[in-house]
């Protein structure tokens, strides 16, 4: 069923014109069958079955006490879980490795809850999802008050107003009244259009300090704008 080695061959077979109708139909059918579900390495659906086939025998040996097989199981499970977590934790890419390790540790600690007659991957994914939800809950509680500041929304903010150049002059005055920890990130990110990473490099502030500074600074700025006489 694994078609990962075949796409090139399939393409050739498919593009070659069939001289006889029957043969063409056969070729076409073969091409269809292989190309309907191409195995892409980053597609979770396509990695599901091979992962089951490689991980399962290793864990079965490991649970009998085979250390080499068990270490190999853990290493390959780690790679699989890393991809699984990364796809779902897009807002916190720095935390992928932590969450993956928590899931791996849970898999090790609770390896006796896997029934050996049942498929392995649903069990593995259920543990990963449980740990992922734990992590998301902890992080969203921590960051619930903060706006997500990814590069896209920053670009959108920076380019939204065609007359931003004019507006900038007025904001400058108020911006000068903000404390440095708010003013500097806003100047870098919002006025000069630097990314958070670039701002971090230039100012030496941490990434979260930059984001928090931008967010709280903008809020403070908005309040002062409302309060300041026109």
């Amino acid at each position, binding site marked *: 069923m694994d078609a990962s080695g075949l796409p090139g061959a399939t393409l050739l077979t498919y593009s070659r014109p069939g001289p006889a109708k029957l043969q063409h139909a056969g070729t076409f059918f073969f091409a269809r069958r292989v190309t309907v579900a191409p195995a892409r390495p980053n597609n979770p659906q396509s990695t599901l079955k091979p992962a089951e086939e490689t991980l399962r025998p290793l864990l079965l040996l490991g649970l009998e006490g085979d*250390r080499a097989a068990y270490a190999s199981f853990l290493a390959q499970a*780690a790679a699989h879980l*890393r991809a699984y977590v990364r796809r779902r934790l897009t807002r916190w890419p720095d935390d992928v*490795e932590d969450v993956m*390790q928590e899931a791996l540790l849970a898999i090790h600690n609770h390896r*006796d*809850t*896997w*029934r050996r007659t049942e498929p392995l991957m649903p069990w593995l994914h*259920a543990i990963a999802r449980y740990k992922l939800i734990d992590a998301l809950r902890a992080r969203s509680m921590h960051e619930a008050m903060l706006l997500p500041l990814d590069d896209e929304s920053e670009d959108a903010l920076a380019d939204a107003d065609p007359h931003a150049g004019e507006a900038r002059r007025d904001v400058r005055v108020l911006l000068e009244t903000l404390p440095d920890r708010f003013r500097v990130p806003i100047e870098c990110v919002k006025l000069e259009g630097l990314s958070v990473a670039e701002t971090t490099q230039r100012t030496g502030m941490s990434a979260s300090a930059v984001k928090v500074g931008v967010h709280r600074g903008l809020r403070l700025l908005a309040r002062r704008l409302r309060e300041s006489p026109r």
Partner: protein
Amino acid sequence: MNTDALVEALAKGPIAVGPRAVERRLGAALAGGATLATLAMLAALGLRPDLHAALREPMFWAKLAYPLVLSLAAACATTVLARPAGRARRAAAASCAVAAAMVLAALGILAIAPAGGRVALAVGHSALACVVAVAALSLPVFALAVVALRRCAPTRLRSAGAAAGLLAGATAAAVYAWHCDETALPFLGLWYTLGMVMPAAIGAVLGPRLLRWA
């Protein structure tokens, strides 16, 4: 810690495990809890005085069989829900069907009973005592089952809590049947059911909080 080091460290410790760890943990919890509940029943309530004669009545065995069937279904459900990704739809459906059939039978008998005797038939002389006793006797099994489940890895915490609650309630009802001297089927259908459903509902409410494992 980098992942390679973690893998190496984990593979160094003991790795072999027996195949029936979940069943053993929950079985021990059930046995211990049932023993405690029985001792509590004997100490606080006592066996019914006419037990010897009652052993020949079908009603005594019905009061024992109904909770035991639910206890069996709940035990199956709990061992499945104790594992990641486990779900126990068939056991849940079977439990609901058995309980619903019993309640319907109780209501049917009440419906055809003469109007004057209905209240006596339904409430007997110990309805409140029955519900309270079953709920109280369910505590040991529930507590031990929660401890056992936390050492497993349930991922549907609400369902697992409900299953553990039903296991505890049904076991408690089977224990209480040795004390209870009610003889009417409607009593069994209404109050035993309520006594067993209550711990299950409490288990469902507390499950997400109590069963969170790390």
